C-alpha cells in the first residue's frame, strides 16, 4: 500500500521529499512566520517557538504516516499472523525518517518543557495507537485492513488530544468537498483560511499560514500546513471522479498538485 506512504507530502518531484526540517525549509518557515506576523499585525507577535513546535509536530506526524504507508503491504498480507509491527517499531522508524530529513531527532537540543511534553505526547499516542490495534494488524485471512495512513493519523491525533488536549491540538482537515470523515470537517476559522488564502490563485504553493487567535474561547497560536496530491495519492483521490477506491469511497477526481489536505495545529498560549 505504498500509495499511502506519501500522503500529506508536499507535492511534485521538483521538491522531492522536501520536508520542513531541512535548513532551507526552516528558513522558509521563518520567512512565512514573519509574513504571518505581518498579516496579523498588531494582534500578537509571532513566536518562533510556537512556529517551531508546530512544524515539528507536523513533521513527526508525517513521518509516522510514512511508516504506516510503507508498511501497507505487510499490514495487508493475509498470510502472516504476527507481523511484529509494534508501536515501538513504528516510533523508531518514524524518528529515523525524521532524523534523516531534519538532521536531528525531534526531541534533541534545547526544548521548552511544553514543547518536549507535546512531542513526547505525540510519540506516545503513536505507540499506543499501533499497540491497541495489534489484533487488527495481525489478523490472518483478511487482506485490506483499513489501517491506512489517514486513519492512523486521525487516531494518533485523537489520542494526542486525550493526552495533551489542554496544551495543543493536531488535526488533519481539508476543504469540505475533500473531507471524507465528518470528524475531519474544518471549523469556521479553517474554512475561512482555505477560502481566502490557500484556494486563492496567488497563494504560493506550500506556504503555511499561522496566526495568533482564539480556539475554544482561549488565546491560541493556530497554524495551517497545506499538503498537495502526489502521484501516489491519486490511486484513491484521483480520477475518474466518483469511482470507488479500495476503501469503497468515491474518488474526488483530484490531479497532481491540487490541494489535498491541511494539517491544522493549535498551540494554546
Amino acid at each position, binding site marked *: 500500500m505504498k500509495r499511502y506512504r506519501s500522503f500529506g507530502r508536499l507535492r511534485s518531484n521538483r521538491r522531492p521529499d522536501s520536508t520542513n526540517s531541512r535548513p532551507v525549509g526552516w528558513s522558509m518557515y521563518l520567512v512565512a512566520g514573519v509574513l504571518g506576523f505581518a498579516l496579523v499585525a498588531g494582534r500578537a507577535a509571532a513566536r518562533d517557538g510556537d512556529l517551531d513546535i508546530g512544524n515539528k509536530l507536523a513533521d513527526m506526524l508525517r513521518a509516522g504516516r510514512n511508516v504506516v504507508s510503507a508498511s501497507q503491504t505487510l499490514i495487508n498480507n493475509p498470510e502472516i499472523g504476527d507481523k511484529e509491527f509494534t508501536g515501538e517499531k513504528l516510533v523508531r522508524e518514524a524518528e529515523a525518517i525524521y532524523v534523516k530529513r531534519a538532521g536531528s531527532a525531534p526531541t534533541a537540543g534545547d526544548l521548552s518543557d511544553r514543547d518536549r511534553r507535546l512531542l513526547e505526547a505525540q510519540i506516545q499516542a503513536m505507540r499506543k495507537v499501533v499497540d491497541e490495534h495489534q489484533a487488527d494488524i495481525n489478523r490472518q485471512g483478511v487482506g485490506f485492513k483499513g489501517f491506512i495512513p489517514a486513519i492512523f493519523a486521525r487516531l494518533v491525533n485523537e489520542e494526542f488530544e486525550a493526552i495533551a488536549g489542554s496544551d495543543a491540538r493536531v488535526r488533519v482537515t481539508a476543504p*469540505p468537498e475533500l*473531507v*471524507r*470523515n*465528518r*470528524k475531519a*470537517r474544518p471549523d469556521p476559522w479553517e474554512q475561512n483560511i482555505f477560502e481566502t488564502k490557500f484556494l486563492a490563485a496567488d497563494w504560493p504553493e506550500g506556504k503555511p499560514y499561522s496566526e495568533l487567535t482564539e480556539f475554544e474561547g482561549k488565546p491560541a497560536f493556530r497554524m495551517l500546513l497545506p499538503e498537495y496530491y502526489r502521484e501516489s495519492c491519486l490511486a484513491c483521490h484521483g480520477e475518474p471522479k466518483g469511482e470507488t477506491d479500495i476503501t469503497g*469511497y*468515491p474518488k474526488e477526481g483530484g490531479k497532481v498538485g491540487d490541494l489535498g489536505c491541511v494539517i491544522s495545529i493549535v498551540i494554546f498560549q
Partner: protein
Amino acid sequence: MTPPATSLSEARPRAETRSGFARLGAVPLWARLITLTAAGLISLIGSSMFFSSALHQTADRTTKMKELFDVVGTAGEAHVTFGKLRYWLTDLSVSLLVTSERSAIAAREKLEANLDRLAGYDPETVTEIRSEVEAYFSTAMDAADAYTDGNRVIGNTFLASARGHSEKVDDALNGLVEKVSAAAFAERQFVVENADQSARAAVYIVVILSVIGIVLTFLVFRSIVHPLHRLNDAIAGLMQGNFDVEIPPEGDDEFGAMARTLRLFRENAAERSRLEEESERQRNTISTAVETISDGFVLYDRDARVLLANSKYREMFSDIASVIQPGTSFRDIMAAQVETDPAIAGSLPAEQWIEERVARHRDPQDTVDERRYGDLWMRISKRQTPDGGKVAVYTDITEMKEREAEIIGTRDAAEAALADLQKAQKRLVQAEKMASLGQLTAGIAHEIKNPLNFVNNFAKLSDELLEELAEILAEPIKALDKDSREDAEDLLATARENLVKINEHGKRADSIVKNMLLHSREGPSERRTTGLNAIAEEALNLAYHGARAEDSSFNIEMIRSMAEDAGDIECYPQDLMRVFLNLMSNGMYAASKRTANADAGYAPTIWVTTRSVGNGVEIEVRDNGGGIPPDVREKIFLPFFTTKPAGEGTGLGLSLSYDIVVKQHGGELALESEPGEFTIFRVKLPRILPPMEPQNAPSRQSAAEGGLQ
C-alpha cells in the same frame, strides 16, 4: 326478328307497370347520382363525427388514467427514495462518512421532488409526510452530529426518536400508494369498458350504413343500367341493320331523350337503307352490262384512278390482276405491267416508258393505240368522259395481227425469192461470161504459145550464132583500129544482151501463157503427188500478179512461212491451185479494201504458212483486212453468196473451194476472223487422198452446179 308493331305495343305497357322504377325514371340521372353521393357523404360525415367523439372521450379518460398511473409510479418512487434516505442516515451514524451524508441529502431532495408531484393529488397526506420527513431528517442528523462528537448515548437517543418519524412516513407512503393504485385501476377498468362500447356501436353503425348504401346504390344502378342495356341492345340491332329492333319507351329522363333520338335515327337509317338498295340495284345493272362486254373495260376518274374495271380486263392482264383495283392509279398499273414484262417498254427505260404512257393517258383527245403485251396484241381506245375521267376499251386483236403478219411474211418471202432468182440469173450470166472468157483465153494462149516458142528458140540460137561469130571475128576485130574495134565489140555485146533479154521475157510470157492455160483448162484435172509449198508459192505469185493486173497501184507485203517438212501430198494440183488462188485473192482484196480507208500506219499484209500436221498438212492464209462479221460467216460458203459489188465476184469461189477441199480431197476448210483485225482461212489436207468414186471427183462446173442445188 319480331315484327315492329308487336314489340312496340309490348314495350309501352311494361314501362307503365313498373311503377317503382317509373317514379325513379322520372328523376333526371344527375339528380339520382347526386342523391346517392350525398347520402354516402352524409353517412361518412355522421359516422366520422361519432367515431371522433367516442375517440376523444376515450382519449380523455385514457389521459386521466395515465396521470393516475404516473402518480402511482411517483408514490412508489417516493417510497423507494425514502428507503434510501433511511439507509444513508443510518449508515452515516455508523460510518460518519461525509459521502453517506451527501447521499442522504440527495435522497431527501429527490423525495421532496416526488412529494411535490404527489402534492397535486393528495395535498393533505403530502403535507403530513413532509413534516414527518423533516422531523426524521433533522433528528437523524442530530444523532450523526452526536456520534461525530463522540456522544454515543445522546446519538442513540436521537436515533430512537428518528425511528418513530420514519415509521410514520413509511405508513403514510404505503397508504398513499394503495389509494392511488386503486383509483388508477378503477379508471383503467372504466376506459376499457368505454372503448368496448364504442367499438360495438361503431360496428352497428357501419353495418346499418352499409346496408342502406348497398340498397340505394343498387336502386340507382339498376335505374341506370337497365335502360342502358335496352338502349345498347337497340343500338347494336340498328348497327347490324335490323330496323325492326325494339326501342325503349321515351320517358322523361336522359334515357328517354336517347330513346327518342334513337327512334329518329332508326327512321333515317331505314330510309337511307332503301335508297342504298336502289342505288345498289342500278350499280349492279351497269356492272352487269360492263361485265358482258367482250372487250376489256376500265373507267378512270379525273385523277387517273381506277373507278371500275370489268373482269375481261383483269383476264387480259391476269399477271397484274391483283393490282387492278378501284383506287389504283394508271401510273401504278403501268409500273406493274412494265415490271411483269419489261419487253413491252421496248428500247425505252421503264421510267420513261411509264411517263410516256401516262402523258398519252392525259391526252384529252380520243386515242386509239395498238400495243403488244406478251403474246397478245391490244387495241386500246380511250375517250374522255364529261367529268374529266377516261373510258378505256381494250380489244384483243392478236388474231388479226397474226393474219396480217402471215400475209406480210408470205409477201416478203416471195419478194426475197424473186430477188434471189434475179441475183442468181445475173451471176449465171456472169459465170457464163467468165467461162467464155476462159475458153477464149485458152484459145489465145494456145495460139500465142507456138510463135512464142519460135521467138524463144531463135533468140537462143541467135545467141549461139553470135558467140561463134564473135570467135571468128576475134582476130579481124583485133586488126581494126581502136575506135572500130571498140564499136565492133560493143555491138556484139549489146546484141548478145538483147538476145538474153528477149529470151528472158519470152520465158516470162511463156509462163504467163502456161498459167492462163492452166487456169482456163476444162475437164477433170489429173491426180498427182506434188509439193505443197510449190503450189502455194505459185498460187501466191499468180494472185499477186492478178491483183496487180487489175490495179497497177496495188501493193501488199507477203510473208511466207513454208515448212520444209510440208513435203509432197497426193492431190489434184490444179484444183488445189484454184483453191489457194481463191483464198489468197480474197485476202488481198480484203487488205486492199481496207487500205482505201485505213490510217497512215496501216500496211496491207498477207501471211501464208504451211506446216505438217500428223498424217496431213495444213496451209493457213491470213490477212489483216476488215475481217468477216458473224452473220456473213454463216453464209460465206454458200454458192452465189458474195459481198463484192456486182460484176466483181461470182459468189462461187469459196463455194467451189469448199467442195474441192472437203469433198474432193477429204480435207477441212475452217474460217477464223476478228472483224477489224484479221481473217484466217485454214485448209487441212491428208497426205494420201481417200479412195473416191470417179464421178465424185468434181470438176469446176459440177461443183458449181452442186452449189446451186
